[in-house]
């Protein structure tokens, strides 16, 4: 079975995620889009694993899921903290850290 279609789907999902990160201003949505990008990568990894018939890619995919879980934990924690301080939930407004 050709791997092309899997990769096309993966690239599409990745681009959707990247586009979402760039255009959306709500940090929750940005996190979701990041998840999309990570999962696009997962899809590609698993597709390659199937193609080569060894499980390295699947292990990588599992690790990426762990990383994604960590990232979401930190990200959501930050968002909750921002929310509690009644700051705007908008990444364009949160720009004190600049040169």
């Amino acid at each position, binding site marked *: 079975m050709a791997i092309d279609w899997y990769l096309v789907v993966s690239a599409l999902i990745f681009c959707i995620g990247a586009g979402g990160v*760039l*255009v959306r201003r709500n940090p929750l949505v940005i996190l979701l889009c990041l998840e999309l990008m990570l999962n696009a990568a997962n899809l590609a990894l698993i597709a390659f694993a199937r193609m080569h018939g060894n499980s390295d890619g699947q292990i990588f995919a599992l690790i990426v899921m762990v990383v994604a879980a960590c990232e979401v934990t930190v990200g959501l924690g930050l968002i909750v903290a921002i929310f509690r301080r009644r700051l705007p939930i908008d990444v364009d407004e949160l720009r004190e850290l600049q*040169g």
Partner: protein
Amino acid sequence: MSTTTWAWLVLAFPLAGAIVNGLGYKKLGRGGAGAIGTLAIGLAFVCAVAALIGLQGHAPNDRALVSSLWDYAVTGDVNAKLSILVDPLSVYMMLVVTGVSTLIHLYSVSYMRGDRGYSRYFAYLNFFVFSMLVLVLGGNFLMLIVGWAFVGAASYLLISFWYRRGTATKAGIKAFVINVVGDVGLVLGTFFILRHSGTLDFLGTFRAAEGGAFAGHQGSLTAGCLLLLVGAFAKSAQIPLHTWLPDAMEGPTPVSSLIHAATMVTAGVYLIARMHPLFERAPAAADTAAIVGCVTLLVAGTIGLVMTDIKRVIAYSTMSQIGYMIMAVGAGGYVAGLFHLMTHAFFKALLFMAAGSIIGAMAGGQSLERMSGFRRAMPFTFGCFVVGGLALSGVPPFSGFFSKDEILAFVGSRGGWFDVLYVVGYAGAFLTAVYTWRMIFRAFFGEPCAEAKELEHGHLAHAEVPTNPANGEVEDTDVGFPGPEHTIAERAIPMKVAMTLLAIGATFAGFVQIPHVDHVITNFLQPTFADSKWVDHEPSNTLVNFGLVIGTVIGLSGIALAYRVWVLKPGSAAAWQARLKPVYTLFVNKWWFDEAIDLLVVRPFAAFGNFARGTFERVFVDDTLVGGTTGIVRAGSAAVRAIQTGFLRYYAALLLLGGAAVLLYFLISAS
């Protein structure tokens, strides 16, 4: 104990004295510091005598002992060791330095009693003796340079000892700067010699010179020797690096006596004598030394004629006498020069001590204009002055007579253009007699001045308001100034003892080397100078006998002239001054050496420095180098800062773009 152990002890005692006095000044009190200082030098003298005895036990051709304590750096051609060379020359210098120093320390115990910086004084003085001993004992160029620089530092500390006096601190700085010029000369000269000899060690260098290390490098050797001479001239106050010595009289009188008459200023003579195997292979440098010594002895003598500050008269006299020594060692008469070095140490130290006594009686005043008629008030000081004066003017049988005549006989026997030096030497001897006795007649003869009259009634004059003798400034008598009390030799046993011993030395020291009778010093120093080409060069009997007669005649006639001008016909000196106005102006302005150095060296350098500060420093260093570097960093950081907008999505876009660029690169390079 072995000879070299004794020599190490000679070094150790003054150093220990300096450290104990320097660190323990609070605990020691007044008596302690003086006692420790004097005792340390006294013990050093005893050890020096022991070293002498030990050295005489060796066979004559085995009297150059080297002892090394540890190595600093021994790499390739550089063998920097802490080593000493004990041979007849260094033992001779060691004996003169420690012997005279002991007496001067003893003198200082009383003379400096009124000073609040008593312990500091003895710490410095001990340090000086230590440095001087390092200089004369050092067995390689490194030790020589270290000792050379140390005595310069000690001299600076002691000249500016009364540091509240602006004149004293200025004089100290001047002496230090001129001496550093000499140090640089010495170091550069060492480099020239090291380059071809391949060793820092003295004996190794001389062996290398013997073995022809400088064959074909005559220019290097001559340059090296001339640079060594720069060091010698600066330390020994020879023209044109002499102007610091008269100013150095700002220091306490015993300091002038020890450093600026008896020991430190003779270091140049020692240097040339020590380096004789090199100087004999560089005749141009040796001749330069002889000529400069000769010029100095004459010029200094003429200035001594017209100075009115008693210490400055003696200072110019010192310059003049060192001129004789330099002339002698330059011409090859090493023994004659070193013999004069010893006798000069005795009588010049004595003269300074006696001058210190008079200055005490004048409550700190030093001007000959105000002194007169001290003969009855201060018989002991007068006696010492007469002994010192007779020795200095070269009247038989005093020590200066024999040593000066030996120098002049040697120079005369060289023939050729040395005859000019010979004649100038005798002219200088005549001047010596005149200025010495002018000083004595003015201070001790004539109507007693107010201070002398008071002293005759048993009351030592006491200045109501102490003033600086150099510029008349009123001074407080707290630390950093001479105390309010003054001491005269008549009332202080230590001073009397020291002066008596020196007077004995000044009278009888010449007897060790009387022509046709004995040759103690020649025989003793023979092993050091055995390789000299002048070792067998003896002036003819006719010349020696002629010298003895003419020396006596010139000394006595100089005294007679001084007696006529300043005692028989008081006031005739003023008439002479008026008659010889241009000459007098030349002399009293010290031949304008200070002004010439100021014009030729100080001002051009100051102007150059100002120019460099205005252009090079400001434009190149400040604006280009420093300003340029900060400008680049500033611009770079401004550019980087502009990227840091704080927009999260902007960063994400950059990240993606970067990733896309990398991807693109791999895609293109893969296809």
